[in-house]
């Protein structure tokens, strides 16, 4: 919402400075977004060209002697070199002296010398002053323009422009009058009373008017008046200047008056050329497929959701949104029909959005125009038309309007203190509300407050508290500490939140970088990872490749890894702990820790290092890097590793032979890890050594509640622990895990751990055979073991492995 200072002062009697006004506007909730104080135009003065001689050295240039009044150059003429074709003796124009910034050419003037002749300034064109695009000559003012006076003041360019960022709840402040009312209530002056429009009327408005609607809320009132015999030329300069200042293009007096009313009083008006209206005007729903050529010269296709004003020609106007081109007013208009109507805010908002039309009328009607100003607005507009265009007004025709029944709010003044902490006396509260136009009835602490017709946003007590508070002053509210709930606050995170943090910090401490990738991914990628269902498809994605809620973190991470590789960073380890989406319910949103390693980005680091041979690294990442990451998350989240099983294979996007599933019990899937299926990588258009994992944090069961924080007593065996190595030859498809399990279960009491330290496949073992070497950790608990004890244990281990895997102790 834009307005000029002088325009505001039409409504507000005040001595306040521009600065004070702006500060107060912001303080009462009408946030000033921009102020143009027009200081840039101050240095330009009106000057008369006394003589214009040809430049001695240039055919196209002239040397002017210019009189800029007694204040400039001690009253002596100023010499200026000028190239404008219209420069001539006697011309009165706008002079800029050296030191002046000329906005249109973005130059600060200095004394110049042009082909040997000094120039002490510049006579400006409209373009140079940013007034128009006209650069064919210098400004040519009427001969009686006051020489020496401020050009800006003369041309009406010194009126500061204020732009406020209006919140959608304040239709009353879509009018300059309403803004003035707020400022007056805030003590910044007095609201100027406006005389009731007075003019004579002759006869009735001859056009029939009907509202034919199934829902009367769609158009709760319609006023129409004919003015005969108008002359529709340009509007007066003062009106044009104000409209231009706020960014509107003057068109003709009738149209300008409606625009003026829109901003001056927040009352959108419409004018029909009566000669072009055929038959009665009917307010009705549009027919399906009906079209109208609107004032913006675009054709709109309508439907019954839109309310229109129609006559025998068809649709003449889209009610409350935009008039039609056909019955619009131009210079030939002699008889004009002035419309002042009320529309349903919700329907205006819906229609405007559906049609894609943004107008000043829609802006006001969708917020709610003052119903009580419908008829006075028609009168005021009529008055302006008579004043500026002449003519004779007929009696207005008003249909549908049932009057305004004010909302009444039962208001205890103590609400102000309860909600804001402010101490405002009941007297002051009453006074503030009254100044804002509320009617306060009753006395004492609890009153009835009637809401004025221009404040549809006020519904209840809290709204009135806001009114009192913002006018009293929000800056008066002092900070006040809240009570602590406990001297020392306990744990505040849920188990899932704790695990989310642990997963992030664990993966980062494994050298991975945390990424945040888009929740929406391309449809084909979603489908590739088991998603793409209709319920998770956006109807209005911001881009075609951001259309589907992701079923997995992996496509985002894999493509991110590739993007980095394309920039020359091929060894990347990235992870994300965030949501994936199985369905559109709250439970369908999973909490997943996922990661991808590419190139040689293993735990130890990436790339080659002199010590690689000894310390690993430099090798392409593989399934085991991903497995280690995944298990690190599971372990960090506090799950007992003894309950975790690894099963071969994972969903289709993984490499079937180089992937695994992490399970807890037969049912709970905690995650997947592995290398990826070549087809998946191909479809994602990614390449290189890649492995990844996903761990489902929300699938992890809560740990059992412990009765005590005390840890179980530590039982240390006094006997020396020993290690024994065994190698088994088994069929190639036997899993090492099975051998480990068989060894561990051989004697659960003595065997505390089993590690696989070598896997060997060679022709010496025979086709389809491999050797798996394990190290068994033995902790005697009762006594030091004898050779016989070890032999017995070995026999048990070998027998168990043989029984479960068919493996033989390697000779």
């Amino acid at each position, binding site marked *: 919402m834009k307005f000029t200072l002088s325009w505001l002062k039409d409504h507000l009697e005040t001595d306040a400075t521009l600065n004070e006004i702006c500060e107060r506007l*912001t*303080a*009462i*909730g009408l*946030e000033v977004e921009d102020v143009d104080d027009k200081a840039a135009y101050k240095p330009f003065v009106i000057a008369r060209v006394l003589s214009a001689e040809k430049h001695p050295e240039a055919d196209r240039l002239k040397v002017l002697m210019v009189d800029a009044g007694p204040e400039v150059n001690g009253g002596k003429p100023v010499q200026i070199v000028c190239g404008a074709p219209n420069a001539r003796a006697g011309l009165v124009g706008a002079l800029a002296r050296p030191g002046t910034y000329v906005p249109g050419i973005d130059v600060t003037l200095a004394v110049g010398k042009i082909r040997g002749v000094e120039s002490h300034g510049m006579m400006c064109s409209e373009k140079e002053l940013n007034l128009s695009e006209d650069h064919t000559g210098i400004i040519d003012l009427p001969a009686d323009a006051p020489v020496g006076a401020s050009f800006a003041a003369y041309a009406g360019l010194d009126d500061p422009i204020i732009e406020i960022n209006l*919140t*959608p709840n304040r239709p009353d402040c879509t009018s300059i009058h309403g803004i003035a009312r707020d400022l007056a209530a805030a003590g910044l002056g007095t609201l100027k009373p406006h005389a009731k429009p007075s003019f004579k009327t002759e006869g009735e408005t001859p056009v029939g008017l009907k509202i034919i609607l199934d829902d009367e809320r769609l158009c709760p009132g319609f006023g129409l008046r004919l003015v005969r015999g108008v002359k529709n030329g340009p509007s007066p300069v003062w009106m044009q200047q104000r409209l231009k200042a706020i960014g509107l293009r003057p068109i003709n007096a009738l149209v300008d008056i409606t625009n003026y009313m829109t901003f001056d009083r927040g009352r959108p008006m419409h004018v029909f050329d009566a000669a072009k209206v055929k038959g009665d005007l009917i307010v009705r729903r549009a027919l399906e497929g009906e079209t109208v050529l609107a004032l913006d010269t675009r054709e709109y296709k309508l439907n019954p959701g839109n309310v229109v004003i129609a006559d025998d020609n068809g649709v003449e106007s889209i009610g409350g949104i935009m008039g039609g081109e056909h019955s619009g007013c131009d210079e030939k208009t002699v008889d004009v029909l002035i419309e002042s109507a009320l529309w349903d805010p*919700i329907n205006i908002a*819906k229609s405007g*959005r559906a049609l894609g039309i943004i107008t000043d009328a829609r802006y006001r009607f969708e917020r709610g125009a003052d119903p009580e100003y419908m008829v006075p607005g028609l009168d005021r507009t009529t008055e302006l038309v008579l004043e500026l265009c002449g003519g004779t007004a007929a009696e207005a025709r008003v249909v549908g309007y049932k009057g305004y029944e004010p909302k009444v709010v039962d208001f205890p003044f103590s609400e102000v203190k309860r*909600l*804001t*902490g*402010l101490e405002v006396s009941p007297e002051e509260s009453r006074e503030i509300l009254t100044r804002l136009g509320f009617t306060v009835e009753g006395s004492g602490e609890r009153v009835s407050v009637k809401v004025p017709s221009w404040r549809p946003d006020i519904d209840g*007590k*809290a709204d009135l*508290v806001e009114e009192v*508070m*913002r006018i009293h002053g929000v*800056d008066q*509210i*002092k*900070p*006040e500490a*809240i009570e*602590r*709930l406990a001297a020392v*606050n306990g744990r505040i*995170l849920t188990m899932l*939140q704790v695990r989310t943090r642990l997963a992030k*910090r664990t*993966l*980062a*401490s494994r*050298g*991975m*970088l*945390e*990424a*945040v*990738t888009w*929740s929406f991914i391309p449809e084909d990628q979603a489908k590739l990872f088991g998603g793409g269902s209709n319920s*998770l*498809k*956006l*109807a209005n994605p*911001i881009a075609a490749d951001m259309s589907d*809620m992701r079923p997995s973190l992996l496509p985002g991470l894999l493509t*991110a890894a590739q*993007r980095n590789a394309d920039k020359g960073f091929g060894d990347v380890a990235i992870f994300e*702990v965030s949501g994936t989406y199985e369905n*559109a*319910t*709250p439970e369908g*949103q999973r909490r997943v820790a996922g990661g991808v390693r590419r190139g040689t980005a293993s*735990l*130890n*680091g990436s790339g080659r*290092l*002199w010590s690689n041979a000894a310390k690993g690294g430099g090798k392409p990442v593989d399934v085991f890097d991903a497995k280690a990451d995944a298990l690190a998350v599971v372990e960090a989240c506090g799950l007992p590793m003894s309950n975790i099983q690894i099963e071969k294979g994972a969903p289709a996007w993984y490499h079937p032979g180089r992937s695994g599933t992490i399970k807890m019990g037969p049912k709970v899937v905690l995650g997947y890890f592995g290398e990826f299926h070549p087809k998946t990588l191909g479809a994602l258009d990614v390449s290189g050594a890649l492995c990844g994992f996903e761990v489902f944090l929300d699938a992890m069961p809560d740990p059992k509640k412990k009765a005590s924080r005390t840890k179980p007593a530590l039982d240390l065996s006094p006997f020396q622990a020993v290690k024994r190595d065994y190698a088994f030859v088994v069929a190639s498809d036997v899993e090492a895990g099975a051998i480990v399990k068989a060894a561990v279960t051989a004697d659960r009491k003595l065997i505390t751990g089993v590690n696989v330290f070598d896997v060997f496949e060679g022709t010496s073992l025979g086709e389809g055979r491999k050797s798996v070497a394990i190290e068994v950790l033995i902790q005697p608990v009762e006594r030091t073991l004898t050779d016989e004890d070890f032999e017995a244990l070995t026999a048990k281990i070998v027998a168990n492995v043989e029984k479960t895997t068919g493996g033989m102790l390697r000779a």
Partner: protein
Amino acid sequence: MSDLENLKTSLLAEIAGAGDEAAIEAVRVAALGKKGSVSELLKTLGTMSPEERQTRGAAINALKNEITDAITDRKTVLKDAAIEARLKAETVDVSLPVRSSPAERGRIHPISQIVDEITAIFGDMGFSIAEGPDVETDYYNFTALNFPEGHPAREMHDTFFFQPDENGERKVLRTHTSPVQIRTMEAQKPPIRIIIPGKTYRQDSDATHSPMFHQVEGLVVDRKSHVGNMRWILEEFCKAFFEVDSVTMRFRPSFFPFTEPSFEVDIQCDRSGPIVKFGEGTDWMEILGCGMVHPNVLRSGGLDPDEFQGFAWGMGLDRIAMLKYGMPDLRDFFNADVRWMNHYGFRPLDMPTLFGGLSA
């Protein structure tokens, strides 16, 4: 006595000539071993007369002691020399590089770090962390939050919609974290003190807007909390978060459907340089929106607005991250560029706490 002198001279020469520990051991055995030259002499002591023992015996013992000491000394010298030689042989080029610690290489995304910072601050004030789904119903995202159907305020949110389901219901991607206010009130009775960090979505994209972004929102509901308390909380938060001794904040009346009265809050700062500085300067920057929970929102949460009251506030997580840590472009947050993550990310062991400081 000359036989003893001769023996001593020759033994001392042998000792001095022993070049390594094996040689000196050989000398020791030859002299002091069972059948060593000195041991043989000692054996003769038993056959000597008392007089002889006093003179020759004492001399033999002195020889033994002298030789023993000499061998010990020589052994020490040889041992030291051997260690010296070994050390020399084992010397390496310590300027060769080693792998960095994975914990030094890894990074936490600024969003996660900021959430931890906020959690540390508000956790101390008795708040817990609430979360909710990204895919929301129209009811939780709008209606329950007092956005009437068709109200222009709904248009302030450029909403992402899903395809209608079989019942014609059209879900949305939540446009703010406020649906969690309702979900919390439904699940928990006052007093409520929660912080709601999370992803939010709007159909908007430029340097300061992204179709996906993060908000953090706070909610207090009890029987007495008012605007003054809210002001205190927000000022204390800003001081703690931006790690400055004082902040000046300006509350401006504003409008949000879910609060009444509503405010936008500006923070005084210095924007003259490339980095925004808080606690100084004369500029204002809008930093958050807040207000008293609207009576209709309390009702949506099943609470009587005449009995319960409270306030809520919300701000852009990405935005305050940018303000504190200086990232210039929001879109980079979601690009997963390793250079950006390395530069703006945080080390995994730099955990924000009140006792250790929020940031290093």
